């Protein structure tokens, strides 16, 4: 099969994977909701309306109101913005960090030992606990959540890139490139990195899912984004206090969280099966 044909069938193969299509549809839906949050929501999610507190779902408040009278539907719609910003930025930063660390470790054997021990050490912490500890040091805020989650999830990507680099650097065409006098950096970018894109995409969609979940957990624990910011974790936390009277406050942001996780997991599973059939789970 020639290169051009292989490239042409790529989108087709993705389009034929039911997981990819379903996952992409769900993710697109969530992204659209976040982009047009102002138009889709019916109320200002930050406006307190004590007269209307803890109202069950109705025609005025599709998903009811919380203990401060805020509209849950509008909170859920606006909450997706925080989730997606944190998820996307964490995915980008971990990919970048993973590429740098993974390439260096895969290429320079002496640095490899040191870098991999540091990655092992970082991965020895339960992910959410390390994130909590980093948040404890840095304080609440979207930027710090992204920082904490990027530190927590970069080692996984770095290990992945490193193992890909190690398997590719010994191949004949890399040797040929070296024989032609290409320098390390050029080989890394022109010949090795393109082979990492597939695994990176797969890993990226899973990290996106983890990051959204971890952001919600940090918010729920009260150590994520500040409590006045509408985010799924924060709304679920406020729903916890009123679970006896108003189950809808925590139910709906949790459903949104589950749906996003489902979309990203389907996308990741589908991408993995399509891009690397060897990894396919039978």
């Amino acid at each position, binding site marked *: 099969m020639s290169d051009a044909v292989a490239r042409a069938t790529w989108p087709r193969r993705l389009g034929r994977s039911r997981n990819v299509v379903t996952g992409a549809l769900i993710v697109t839906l969530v992204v659209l909701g976040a982009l047009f949050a102002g138009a889709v929501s019916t109320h200002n999610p930050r406006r307190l309306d004590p007269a209307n507190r803890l109202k069950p779902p109705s025609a005025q408040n599709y998903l009811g109101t919380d203990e401060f009278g805020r509209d849950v539907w509008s909170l859920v719609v606006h909450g997706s913005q925080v989730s997606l910003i944190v998820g996307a930025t964490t995915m980008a930063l971990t990919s970048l960090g993973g590429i740098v660390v993974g390439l260096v470790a895969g290429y320079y054997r002496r640095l490899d030992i040191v870098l991999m*021990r*540091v990655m*092992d*050490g*970082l991965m*020895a*912490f*339960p*992910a*959410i*606990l*390390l994130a*909590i*500890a*980093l*948040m*404890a*040091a*840095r*304080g609440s805020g979207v930027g710090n959540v992204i920082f904490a989650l990027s530190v927590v999830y970069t080692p996984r990507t770095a290990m992945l890139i490193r193992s890909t680099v190690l398997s590719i650097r010994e191949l004949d065409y890399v040797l040929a490139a070296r024989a032609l006098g290409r320098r390390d950096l050029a080989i890394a970018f022109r010949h090795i990195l393109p082979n990492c894109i597939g695994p990176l995409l797969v890993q990226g969609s899973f990290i996106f*899912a983890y990051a959204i*979940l971890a952001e*919600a*957990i940090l918010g*729920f*624990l*009260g*150590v994520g984004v500040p409590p006045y910011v509408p985010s799924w974790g924060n709304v*679920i936390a406020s*729903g*916890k206090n009123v*679970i*006896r009277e108003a*189950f809808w406050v*925590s*139910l709906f942001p*949790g459903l949104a*969280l*589950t749906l996003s*996780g*489902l979309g990203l*997991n*389907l996308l990741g599973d589908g991408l993995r099966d399509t891009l690397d059939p060897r990894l396919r*789970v*039978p």
Partner: protein
Amino acid sequence: MTAYLIRRILALVPVLAVVVSVAFLLIHLIPGDPVSVMLGPDATPAQIQAARHALGLDRPLPEQLLKFYARVLRGDLGRSYFLDRPVTQALLERAEPTLVLTLSALLVAIVIGVPSGIVAAAQPGSLWDRTLMLAALLGVCVPGFWLSLNFIYLFAVRLGWLPAAGYASIFVDPVAALRYMVLPAVSLGFSQSALIARISRSCMLEALQQDYIRTARAKGLSHATVTWVHAFRNALVPVVTVIGITMAILIGGAVVTEIVFNIPGLGRLIISAVLRRDYPVVQGVILATATAYVLINLGVDMLYVFIDPRIRYE
């Protein structure tokens, strides 16, 4: 075996060194002056100076790091200002609920996960298989802490079958302990059971395709014997590894579950420490859990050799 064990333990040294360094660096990630952050806005300059000296923060960084290593090696994790006791004592006091919760959740995850995976693998593509794997996919995506809240609403608020929150020590009142532990253990264990089910299924499928399975069937052995004795025991090896990973995820998940169910374990300890800026306690909890994780993995590796005699790591 002994040589392998020694090599494996020596390999832990650099990992634990990194773990301790990360815990140490935490204090230096605090923006601005860590001491004034810790003591709050009411502290006088003299108090700040005294605390800085007491913490050794006025010394050069490498010296501080070495002193920190020495302290941790002696088992001294510092003192909590708010709890007014050594951090190690606070950790020991709070370890029991977390340990009980983690192990109960692990039990739930294995009891649900392994049989589901095997049943699904017995007839791949069947209705059972597809239903179980869809449930497993949902299980992976459902956030445990949110599932806990829904369980509380359903089983405690609506049905009134179980208490909504709280903890009783299994050594003091086993019946109450069990009643308190059911919801936390199930909601924490459920999503991990999904992971275990998926892995068990694929390992079973692989084992069932082997030649010795065909031989066993040809000998006329019953379906159950072939599935449980021949295939299951061989599928067990990778599953044990996953259970090790699961254990590590459960420790992290236990923190969140404790907050939902008001269980006085390490999770509540670290969260209240974060809110009070009690940094020695934060350091202590992450050091203790990371060490536990590393040791669990060592244990799993040992178990691996034990289950599969082919593995000798020469």
